């Protein structure tokens, strides 16, 4: 079937290295999202600065979420929570059902019980029926909330060295939800 005609070959040695330069950020992320869990991805942060920023990026978190959701029906939930803007007050969280589009506002007033008057809780990330919120006073507290059951937990405090420039999000493991402190 093939007819082959050689008309001057490019040096094999010269091209060998070029494939690593061709591994674009996008391609690397395609590889990272296929690692079995966030543990392996975190370990890859130690490879170099470029990998660290790729794995800490929102783009990685989102791609990873979509990939694992599409590849594992167990995490495919009929709803997710969206906010018009990241870092928005949790009172403006909406429930989203694919078949219905954007639907009702979710009342998360229960989170404010017993809090100081100016306590502000903002939505950081959502995943299925779970949302990740942060509330700030003198330091930042993170909460993971199941909005359906109205159960919530406070995450243990983080290493304070990193608190100024952090980004956080959910990473999905095949059969459980794993929380990743992505520090960037």
């Amino acid at each position, binding site marked *: 079937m*093939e007819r*082959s005609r050689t008309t001057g070959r490019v040096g094999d040695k010269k*091209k060998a290295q070029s*494939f*690593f330069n061709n591994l674009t950020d996008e391609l690397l992320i395609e590889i990272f999202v296929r690692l079995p869990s966030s543990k392996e991805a975190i370990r890859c*942060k130690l490879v*170099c600065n470029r990998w660290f920023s790729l794995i800490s990026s929102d783009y990685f978190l989102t791609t990873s979420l979509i990939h694992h959701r599409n590849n594992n029906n167990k995490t495919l939930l009929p709803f997710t929570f969206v906010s018009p803007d990241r870092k928005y007050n949790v009172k403006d969280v909406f429930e989203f059902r694919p078949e219905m589009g954007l639907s009702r506002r979710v009342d998360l007033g229960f989170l404010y019980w017993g809090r100081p008057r100016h306590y502000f809780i903002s939505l950081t990330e959502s995943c299925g029926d779970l949302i990740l919120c942060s509330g700030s006073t003198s330091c930042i507290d993170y909460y993971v909330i199941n909005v359906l059951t109205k159960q919530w937990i406070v995450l243990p405090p983080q290493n304070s*060295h990193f608190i100024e420039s952090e980004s956080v999000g959910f990473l999905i493991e095949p059969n459980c939800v794993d929380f990743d402190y992505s520090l960037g």
Partner: protein
Amino acid sequence: MASTTETKQKKMLILKSADNDEFEIEESVGVQSETIKNLVEDGFTFVPLPNVYTKALIKIIDYLKKHANKTDSNDEEIKTFDKDFVNTTFDDLFELVSAANYLHISCLMNMLCQTIADRIKDKSPEAVRKIFHINCDYTPEEEAKIRKANAQAFEGQFDESLD
């Protein structure tokens, strides 16, 4: 008579690699690549591929031919073919994944990325650096800081091999 009609119906394409080798393939085989499909739709039958070298192109054409003839009965055969296809060196995998990405062959991309992920998942960061030909650009302090902040991820023994 029947056979002449058959050959006439088979539209052919010529693919030209970055090192100027030309390969003739059936259009139906080639259009599994989105990049080629778009060119074919625009009326091209000669497809230069400046980012794909002969070595990778030969392998990819093999892959496309095998997958173009997918039926219900040869499922096992294709699985074995795929397994052999990815059983190669990291350098070859990187070359193939770049080519598959350029050609937009999503099933091949998925398989190659998954293979690379599976093969690096238990490796130490040092081994991963060598495999990807990356120089570490952290200071020892920065490295220690990342390890400390993510201690759990660095517990246990890791694979130091480079294959």
